[in-house]
């Protein structure tokens, strides 16, 4: 699924997050939905640059660098393995002076095969498969983090996430043959990330975004949707008094330099 994402970001110190939450709740007219997600980020290796990973949508079609892949899943359910992983491949945001940030991303949900008759009740098997799949595309695990917070919907289009992150230190591994490394890292990562005990950063990140379907699945009225989405985001920005803004596009550059 190819998306064009219009975004505005903001940061709120923890001392004021309750105020912001109640303000957003009043603006959107809804109680916040809880968000609890586990994100893994994979980097492309220099072994080879697989053509399948270059985002082929949007003006940034010919990249020499490949993007990192962010994989995330919900931890809110009772059983970890019941939720499936979602892959997101972002590109560097568009340049140019504009009111909202525009970024093209590709997103898909990773589902294990139906013939999966493993009867494990923890998520280790699922995560191991994920690691092996990405390894097959020459992507290796780089780092991961937990994300928890709240989610609002504004104007039927804008999704506002107010979350805290908990960066996790990557598991330290000694010399291990390449084949087994994935399994160990996967098992470690999937099981040792405990949201209840994780240390979250004190800053809350506000991310207001509109995802517009582009590319082969779009319905052809992308420009109109972009215009409306931009309007909604700007309206939201006005309503919450300038908390959200556009960060430097270099910061959101997910690309990795690959040696030739």
């Amino acid at each position: 699924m190819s998306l064009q994402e219009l975004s505005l970001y903001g940061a709120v110190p923890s001392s004021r997050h309750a105020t912001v939450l109640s303000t957003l709740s009043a603006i959107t007219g809804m109680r916040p939905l809880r968000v609890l997600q586990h994100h893994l980020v994979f980097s492309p290796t220099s072994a080879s640059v697989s053509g399948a990973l270059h985002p082929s949508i949007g003006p940034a079609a010919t990249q020499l660098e490949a993007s990192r892949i962010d994989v995330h899943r919900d931890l809110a359910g009772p059983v970890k393995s019941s939720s499936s992983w979602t892959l997101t491949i972002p590109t560097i945001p568009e340049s140019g002076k504009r009111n909202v940030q525009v970024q093209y991303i590709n997103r898909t949900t990773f589902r294990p095969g139906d013939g999966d008759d493993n009867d494990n009740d923890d998520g280790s098997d699922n995560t191991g498969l994920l690691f092996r799949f990405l390894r097959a595309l020459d992507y290796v695990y780089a780092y991961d983090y937990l994300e928890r917070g709240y989610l609002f919907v504004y104007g039927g289009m804008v999704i506002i996430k107010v979350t805290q992150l908990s960066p996790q230190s990557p598991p330290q591994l000694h010399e291990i043959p390449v084949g087994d490394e994935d399994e160990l890292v996967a098992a470690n990562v999937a099981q040792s990330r405990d949201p209840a005990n994780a240390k979250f950063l004190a800053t809350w990140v506000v991310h207001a975004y509109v995802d517009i379907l582009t590319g082969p699945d779009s319905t052809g009225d992308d420009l109109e949707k972009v215009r409306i989405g931009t309007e909604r985001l700007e309206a939201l920005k006005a309503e919450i008094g300038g908390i959200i803004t556009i960060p430097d596009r270099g910061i959101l550059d997910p690309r990795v330099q690959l040696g030739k």
Partner: protein
Amino acid sequence: MASRSPVVKVDPAMDAASVPVESLESIRLRLSQLTHWLNRLQALVQQPTLPPWQTLHSQFAMVLKQLAALSQTLNQHADTLRATNAYPLPSFPVVQETWLLTTLLRKRVEPEVEEWIKAGAQEGAVQQQQQPNALDPPGSGTTKPRVPDDVWNFARDVVDNERESRAWDGVFTGEELMSNNEGDQKDTSTIGPGREGDVEVSLEQVLRYVYQGVDVHEPVHKVVVNTSVRGPARK
């Protein structure tokens, strides 16, 4: 003892059929329950250490309930009771048991009970008088005030002051607006220890971590872009 209806019937034997057994029985039941609960309450209060107020409160509630039931029963059988007269049968040994007889047949209440009844009647009359003037603030006039007027005025002043000293819309507090006008927001990599004992990081640092894996606590001088394969970048 026997009772009979106002219809005069000369019948030396006790007329068992005219005794209003059900009424008396139900009243007796209510009275015995009330006595039981009152005894329990008294026992609770007289303990060496007083039990928690919840227990006392629940007992008291039970007593009130019993009282209500009793008054309802009395009301129900009022007609029957009004028409009932207790009198001794000829076979009662009046001369020996004069004191017992007068005790049982006495209808006059004790002096202090009389006081209570008088006070209650007065209160009731006053309440009824106040009914048409229910919209006036309590405490006006010579009736017993519940909350004095000046307490209400004081409360109103306090609420007004509190309300005016706060802005009820907008997101930033007064102090933050002032400090934000002076300081530069983009530049802060540490704002001070947050509540969780962690250093507040800026938006740029967080986003840089999310997209590039650069350590969150690395300050943002100019844009530090991490294009290395493995992250988070450690220096």
